[in-house]
């Protein structure tokens, strides 16, 4: 099965196994609609950002794509497999192609940095302790926090936690990496480091999907942008298309005015 995607630079053929998609997805919490008839497509090799104001449902999209939440209707597919309605054990292998860096890092409190990074490898039990340690050091070195290997998450700064979370995401060598508000709460140096790391990951062939409301980070690290407002996708396109968009909500988001309070 082949689909055609326009990347702005021409068309190329891809198989559906190279993508993660949402079709006609609806999701609500306590009667409040978070997403309505939402279609989304993440193709391998195209780094995307989902933009939107706080509370728009951006993080929910990541959790739905990972099968951590069950939609009210519609479907989520990882590659050729529709994971909606399946028990986790049935799509564990497909999900291992994806890693996520949560907003707060979500490092396991009771484990050291080294144990956090090597967690999936320990769980899989395929590698020896020495091999896992080697991979852990390599991944921590990539993000520049190898000296923290024996520290606990409570002993790390916010920026270090995010970098450790990235190295944990890298440990299992995923194809896709999701970032949930990776720069929130960081100082400018921290933001620069995270952007730099994302660009290095992209250069290594990883596909990134980020949700954020930080425009500078989004434009520095992604080629395609999705704008979410009031449970619906209002815009999908490139940076240039977004900046020239006439959609009022998008314009408000890019250049807030007094009226922005009412978005």
């Amino acid at each position, binding site marked *: 099965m082949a689909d055609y995607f326009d990347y702005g630079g021409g068309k190329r053929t891809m198989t559906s196994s190279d993508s993660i998609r949402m079709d006609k997805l609806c999701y609500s919490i306590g009667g409040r609609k978070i997403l309505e008839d939402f279609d989304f497509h993440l193709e391998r090799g195209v780094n995307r950002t989902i933009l939107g104001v706080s509370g728009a449902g951006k993080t929910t999209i990541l959790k739905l794509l*990972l099968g951590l939440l069950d939609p009210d209707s519609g479907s989520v597919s990882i590659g050729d497999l529709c994971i909606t309605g399946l028990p986790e054990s049935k799509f564990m292998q497909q*999900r291992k192609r994806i890693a*996520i860096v*949560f907003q*707060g890092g*979500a490092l*396991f409190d009771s484990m050291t940095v080294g144990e956090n990074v090597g967690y999936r490898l320990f*769980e899989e039990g395929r590698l020896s302790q020495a091999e896992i340690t080697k991979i852990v050091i390599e991944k921590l070195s990539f993000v520049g926090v190898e000296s923290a290997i024996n520290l606990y998450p409570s002993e790390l700064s916010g920026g270090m936690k995010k970098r450790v979370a990235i190295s944990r995401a890298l440990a299992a060598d995923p194809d896709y990496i999701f970032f949930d508000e990776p720069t929130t709460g960081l100082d400018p140096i921290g933001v620069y480091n995270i952007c730099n790391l994302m660009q290095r990951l992209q250069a290594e062939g990883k596909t990134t999907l980020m949700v954020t409301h930080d425009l500078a980070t989004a434009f520095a690290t992604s080629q395609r942008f999705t704008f979410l407002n009031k449970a619906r996708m209002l815009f999908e396109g490139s940076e240039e298309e977004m900046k020239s968009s006439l959609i009022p909500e998008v314009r408000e988001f890019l250049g807030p005015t007094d009226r922005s309070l009412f978005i």
Partner: protein
Amino acid sequence: MNFATIDKVLLIFFQELQNYFSLAGRAFVRIFRRPFYYREFTIQFDKLGFASLFICTLTGLFSGMVMALQSLIQLKPFAATSYVGGMVAITMVKELGPVLAALMVAGRVGSAITAELGTMVVTEQVDAMRVEGTDIIKRLVVPRLKAMLLALPLLTIVTDLVSIFGGYIMSAGYNINPVMYISGLPQFMVFQDLIEGVTKPAIFGAIIAITACYVGLNTKGGAAGVGAAAKQAVVLSSVMILVCDFFISKIFVVFRG
């Protein structure tokens, strides 16, 4: 309250009940499946079981002493104070030992489990574990369930023994012959009472672990949510312990004939 509201409340209640028993069922099935997480089990056994030893010892000592004191006062007019040992033992082994130890552990351990898992939920650590490919029931619930299944019967045995010792101290103060106190123990008890005395805490241990894990894994909201969940877990498991105690006692009475 109209029918629609009653309908909604009942629907939520039965949904929660179904989810609770679903978690319990899946946890019990996974007890026998690999991986066994021995390290996690050891940590939990130490945290939940061994660390509760002091509070259970204290509970047993003073319960035994007060039981003996009250029994002595009641039995004295009938010149039956020699039965005080048997009375303390049977009451503690069959009823008070398991229930008091379970309530103490529910307060101390149930809230701790819920708070720990609740914090993991609100800080997305549980989601992170799921993404890493971990079966969270096997990783988080089963080690705690196994630890409680083993620890609470052992803690109850300690509580029972200490309470009998407490009763002995009190009786000695009232010039009851130690030999009479000890010889009274088997007169009141049969082997089935001992079985009842360890069956109850095993069931109570499962109730505490499953309730605490269920409430913890369903925590919503931030720090306030964690606090509310911890309180809810303690209240729920305490009530369930008392209700189940009656039914288990009734079942044992029926079997005794």
